[in-house]
């Protein structure tokens, strides 16, 4: 143990998260068994519920769209060495931005509303991340704590706005009126029907493509621009960044703005794509799922898209589970999610050490033979 061994890159990027996932699923099976249901049957139902039909695939990808946005948000901040737990609040406020555009300009043609709504979502989300970023950069306020506080402040603010200001007059539940139908995201089944493909009606919509586009942009930004390079340098070593003439505080603020903007994208899918109005607590914990998604996806856009689809499938499959197994409810999905964060994030070293030893030994014996 004198020289610390490194895990090969492929194992670090692919094998380690898969081992973590396997461990989390194994523990989940244990929980399901504890509930008195058959784990094997439950896993089969979940896979079937997530991918078994066009409808289930549509729903899985719809949920995945939210998670791609929030996962990217966590990842961008993480590359700058920041832990943004405020994705939930940023998505909430970002959705307000998109929603306001749709409420005001809902009668405009879609191609005109879309860029404005994207700007609204990204702008509001970024604005909500700005203060925590600024306070971290200039005053050294711990970003984890400030973003948590901003989640609660966002929740209070949105409740106030929806109950007192934006509520549709003459209605009990705190939600706005419906957006003008011009501003609705085209559904996947509508788009596919236009090119002659038949697809079941699901909430899956154009925002999925936007999410993939965002993932592509993040990839270009982080690895192929000077700004992205500076961001990674600050994340690796703020001291080195200062020597290289990079201002860590500027990068910190920039990373948080970008992170908040990405989280805001959730509103495009959830509100413009499916709900068509602003309502209480529409992010529904997706901001926190983003942490799990980013951890599993190793903070890489490709990994994030795949792990977001996995979590989307978990959500959809989990709701299927509740129909067929009366002793299991949707909360089981939350348990699995927590276990994934535990095994892929917190207990990473527990799997890394034996894996490194195992792979190291194998390589050594291979060398001996040749």
């Amino acid at each position, binding site marked *: 143990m004198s020289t610390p061994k490194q895990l090969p890159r492929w194992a670090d990027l692919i094998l380690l998260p898969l081992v973590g996932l396997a461990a989390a699923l194994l523990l989940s099976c244990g929980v399901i068994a504890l509930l008195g249901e058959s784990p094997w049957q439950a896993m089969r139902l979940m896979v079937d519920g997530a991918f078994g039909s066009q409808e289930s695939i549509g729903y899985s990808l719809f949920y995945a769209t939210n998670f791609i946005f929030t996962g990217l948000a966590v990842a961008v901040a993480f590359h700058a060495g920041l832990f943004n737990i405020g994705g939930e609040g940023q998505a909430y406020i970002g959705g307000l931005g998109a929603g306001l555009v749709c409420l005001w300009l809902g009668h405009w043609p879609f191609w005109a509303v879309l860029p404005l709504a994207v700007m609204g979502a990204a702008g509001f989300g970024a604005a909500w991340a700005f203060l925590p970023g600024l306070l971290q950069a200039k005053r050294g306020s711990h970003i984890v704590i400030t973003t*948590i506080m901003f989640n609660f402040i966002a929740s209070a603010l949105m409740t106030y706005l929806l109950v007192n200001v934006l509520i549709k007059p003459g209605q009990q539940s705190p939600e706005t009126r419906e957006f003008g139908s011009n501003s609705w995201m085209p559904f996947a089944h509508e788009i596919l029907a236009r090119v002659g493909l038949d697809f079941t009606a699901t909430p899956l919509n154009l925002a999925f493509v936007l999410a993939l586009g965002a993932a592509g942009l993040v990839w270009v930004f982080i690895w192929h621009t000077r700004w992205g390079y500076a961001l990674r340098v600050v994340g690796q070593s703020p001291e080195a960044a200062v020597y290289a003439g990079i201002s860590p505080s500027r990068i910190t603020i920039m990373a948080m703005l970008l992170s908040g903007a990405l989280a805001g994208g959730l509103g495009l899918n959830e509100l413009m794509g499916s709900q068509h109005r602003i309502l209480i607590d529409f992010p529904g914990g997706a901001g926190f799922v983003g942490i799990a998604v980013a951890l599993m996806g190793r903070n890489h856009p490709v990994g994030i898209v795949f792990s977001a689809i996995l979590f989307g499938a978990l959500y959809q499959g989990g709701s299927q589970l509740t129909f067929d197994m009366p002793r299991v409810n949707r909360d089981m999905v939350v348990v699995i999610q927590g276990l994934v964060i535990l095994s892929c994030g917190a207990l990473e070293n527990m799997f890394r050490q034996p894996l490194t030893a195992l792979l190291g030994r194998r390589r050594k014996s291979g060398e001996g033979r040749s």
Partner: protein
Amino acid sequence: METYTLMVLLLAATIRVATPLLLAALAGMFSERAGVIDLGLEGKMLGAAFAAATVATVTGSAWLGLGAGMVTAIALSLLLGFACVTYRGNQVVAAMAVNIMVSGLGPTLALAWFNLGGQTPQLDAAGQRFTAVVWPWSQSARETPFPGLLYAELLSGHNLVVYLAAALVPAAAWLLYRTRFGLRLRAVGENPQAVDTAGISVTGLRYQAMIISGALCGVAGSYLSIAASSGFVRDMTAGKGYLALAALIFGKWRPYPTLAACLLFAFTDALAVRLQGVALPLVGVIPVQFILALPYVLTVLLLAGFVGRAVAPRAIGVPYSKEK
């Protein structure tokens, strides 16, 4: 007269709201002073609330419920210690994992065991809950407004856990500042290398801190489900763990200022309930949400250094490894 009575009732409500906050904040004080960020307060409390309600339902004993709550929270705390201290994992990630896992596990197990849609049965039989302890002569004291009403409402009529929480503040202060253990605990959060050099186990101290934190969170969670209310419901902590953390920061990681912060935050909460839809002179109706958001806004301002300065223990959040 009317205002006086209202004020006394408001303060009594403040004490009841402050109790779980205070217990959780004291829990966080031990782990954070030892250098472990304790975002897991929320999850540990929620886990304890579920375990306490479950065991109190099954056995009919509030004391066994409290014990189960404490054991559960200690177990979750040890899990955090296992991830953060032994395997040097990211403390924030580990805590989020525990919080999310517990928020799902409680309703899941409750549904499977009690089949009541994710909550535990109502606790109404005698002995299943901690109920109000009525002090002698408080009924007759109520007749005289001062000091009788204060005696009857503020001192008398709370459950055991409230008095326990109050007693724990000086106890925690003593443990932290007047004992060798407390000195070492504070040292391990500031400069673990020095503690290690002195031949004291950093890992051991941090685990001890996690156990204390778990035990206190256990009491806090049990208070929620078997003292303040009668049974476990989904997400019943509702961010109290995070609010406790904010109070701890607001109290600058010291026992008495933390107590003051808990009382302040609890007061805003009690006030928000009281002011719902009430028009005040000059300002009109203050939206409840603004009052409820106040503790979080204050904490952000404090962290930004605009109202005093909160300096965290120096080694907080940094896993300790001997090689460095």
